[in-house]
């Protein structure tokens, strides 16, 4: 699903956010990426969704080498991925339904298809009855579930999540992680960035640990190391 080869990314001369990273993530995996703050986790996600350009190395996603991706191809890439963030990144002036449907409208789907898919995704995340609310009328956990619904409308093969539970309490965290597991069980590859020890340990899956931009450990059935 994802092949990363000798990937490096610097900010300016002195900040080496990622150094010589090599990773291979297979379809259907649920991978956790852990590491202290500033270890380069978000940078890795930003490179995966072409929010930043890499300095050297290669990234291939689903057979598509995005190393030298053109600006006009970026929307196409993003429509094949699902992305969720710590701060949800919802459109504050749009309702729950509109937030989710926007991602489909941007791709030119038919209105009838959009209605069907959006309702389906909102049921999946359990927010069908709150479809007409605005983000500020939802709890953090609910907002994140909207973001997850939105990330799923394209039926992505890969879902990347950058600390999706960073702003949530443990109950909401549990719900979001369960949702991600459910999505993974439906066949989507999930890459979860987190520094929540309990989450990582409960997942009992593959854990990749970053430190100062290096991959320092990559274990099946791993534990939170640091």
């Amino acid at each position, binding site marked *: 699903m994802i092949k990363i080869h000798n990937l490096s990314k610097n900010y300016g001369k002195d900040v080496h956010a990622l150094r010589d990273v090599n990773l291979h993530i297979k379809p259907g995996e649920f991978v956790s990426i852990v590491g202290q703050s500033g270890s380069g986790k978000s940078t890795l996600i930003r490179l995966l969704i072409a929010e930043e350009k890499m300095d050297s190395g290669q990234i291939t996603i689903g057979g598509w080498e995005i190393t030298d991706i053109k600006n006009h191809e970026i929307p196409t890439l993003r429509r094949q991925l699902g992305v969720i963030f710590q701060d949800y*990144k919802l459109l504050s002036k749009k309702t729950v339904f509109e937030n989710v449907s*926007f991602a489909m409208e*941007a791709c*030119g789907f038919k209105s009838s298809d959009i209605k069907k898919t959006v309702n389906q995704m909102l049921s999946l995340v359990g927010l069908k009855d709150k479809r007409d609310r605005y983000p500020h009328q939802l709890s953090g956990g609910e907002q994140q579930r909207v973001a997850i619904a939105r990330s799923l409308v394209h039926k992505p093969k890969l879902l990347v999540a950058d600390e999706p539970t960073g702003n949530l309490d443990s109950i909401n965290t549990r719900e979001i992680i369960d949702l991600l597991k459910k999505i993974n069980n439906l066949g989507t590859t999930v890459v979860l960035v987190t520094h929540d020890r309990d989450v990582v340990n409960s997942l009992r899956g593959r854990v990749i640990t970053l430190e100062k931009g290096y991959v320092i450990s990559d274990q099946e059935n791993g534990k939170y190391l640091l």
Partner: protein
Amino acid sequence: MTSLFRIIKFALQGFFRNFWLSVVTITMMLMAIFSVTLLVGMDYIRQATIDGVEQKVDILISMKPEIDKDKVETLVSDMNGLSEVKSVRIITPEENKVLFEQSNLDDNTKKALEIFEEGENPFSYSLAIQAHDLDQYVIISEFAKQDKYNGWIEDSTFRDYETFVEKINNLAKMVNKYSWYVIAVFSLISIIVIFNTIRISIYTRKNEIMVMKLVGAGNWFVRMPFLLESTFYALAAVLIMIAIVYFVISFLQPSLNTYFQGTQVIDLSGYFRNNFLFIFGVQFLVLSFLNIVSTTIALRKYLKV
């Protein structure tokens, strides 16, 4: 088709759901076109005043009492032959008598008429001649001074307004010269204000723009609603401007009419009515154009994500 519909939908949502931002933006634009409209209105008032005064200006030629209608008509047709002459009006002795009686001269002076018998009229013919242009009166008055008419003409006067006209004309020339500077400066300020207003409004919504990009929207899909929305601002500003003009005129026109004693020398409402499409159409087009350009420039930075 679907995407056109979506663009319109998003533009309307953006316009109404960012209501206060829209209000502020429209207010700034309103200020810009308000100053332009004010200049346009003042320019019309200036021009109308000059035209009004010009209309009242004429040369009054009084014929000698013995001159009969035939000679008067000869002079009239000679005058009409001059390209400078716009109109010649014959004032008959009877009309002159009535004018004298109705004038605001004091009664003693008017009594002077009593020495004449009933049916006797001491007044003669006179001609009121108007030129196309103020400068042409000299030519007309020279023409009347020819030897040929020596025995006919008692007196020729350039009626009253001479110095007044000169003053107005000089003022007009000066205003003409400077109004271009004023308009240029105002336009420049307006452009800067509009550009910055749009920039701030886009900046306020930069997160929205970046989120749209992150969930896979193409640049045009993000850009189009913003561009359309910016023409809504222009439309709203111009509509409010029209309402303001309408109100101001409905208060101003009656007092202008009183000032000029019923003659609609300054017909502001007529002026705005007749040039409605031009004044407000151009305002809308220019404003929309400015908004679209500003929006495009302001968006560029955030679309890079």
